[in-house]
């Protein structure tokens, strides 16, 4: 099981928060849900944990998104966030 750097973990949670804001603007989310979910992400970002990609996928599935990992050539990775409602 490979562990992820702390900076990459923060970047992925940052992308999830941006996705939540985009959904609020488009109208899929309500404001009450948005505030609750942003607080969860904020408390997760404060932790100083060396976690794996599975842990981040579980966090995203609780919030309502699917996290995937797309691997480019020479080992470069881009992580995506998909909505699931």
């Amino acid at each position: 099981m490979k562990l992820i750097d702390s900076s990459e973990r923060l970047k992925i949670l940052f992308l999830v928060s941006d996705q939540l804001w985009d959904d609020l603007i488009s109208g899929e989310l309500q404001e009450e849900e948005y505030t609750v979910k942003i607080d969860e992400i904020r408390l997760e970002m404060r932790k100083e944990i060396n976690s794996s990609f599975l842990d981040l996928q579980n966090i995203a599935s609780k919030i309502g998104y699917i996290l995937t990992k797309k691997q480019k050539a020479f080992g470069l990775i881009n992580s995506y966030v998909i909505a699931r409602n």
Partner: protein
Amino acid sequence: MIQEQNRLSTQQSQINLGKRKTLIQKWATILVLLSCILPFLNNILKNFFDTESVLLLNNPYTKKLDLDTAIFFFSMPISYAFIAIGGLFGAHKKSYYAVFISCYFQVALTTNYLFISKGKAFIYTEICIAILFIIVAVIYFLAQKYYKDLEIMIEFLNKTIDRYSQIIRKNTQKNEVDR
């Protein structure tokens, strides 16, 4: 009206402080890069005109002073000041690698100058100097990770505060309209 925000609008090694302060950050990086070139300025000017002929001190009481050596002696404290100013006002973090490279070349050239009677320095001294600088660069690279995390957190918290304030403003406008 809700406005959309950019995703990670700044580079990873600089904090987003607004439009006015990016100018200062640009000048800070330029100063740090200038401090790399200043110690070699005397070698560059040697090609254009003969600096060793321009004598600043020509007394029988003291040693002679060329323009060549004067530029070299003045470049040291000026480069220190530029690097300090660059650190204060938020220069780009990767520009300091150029400082390491210029320092390595300066140290290597002075050690070779000490062995000028022999022609060139011993191999072991050159290897030791290279290893020292590599260790310092590795330590700097590892310490930079800590500051990268802090900057991401700062940007996230600033964005969430902006978004919460927009939501509150929208709700208060709704309540005022209803009255």
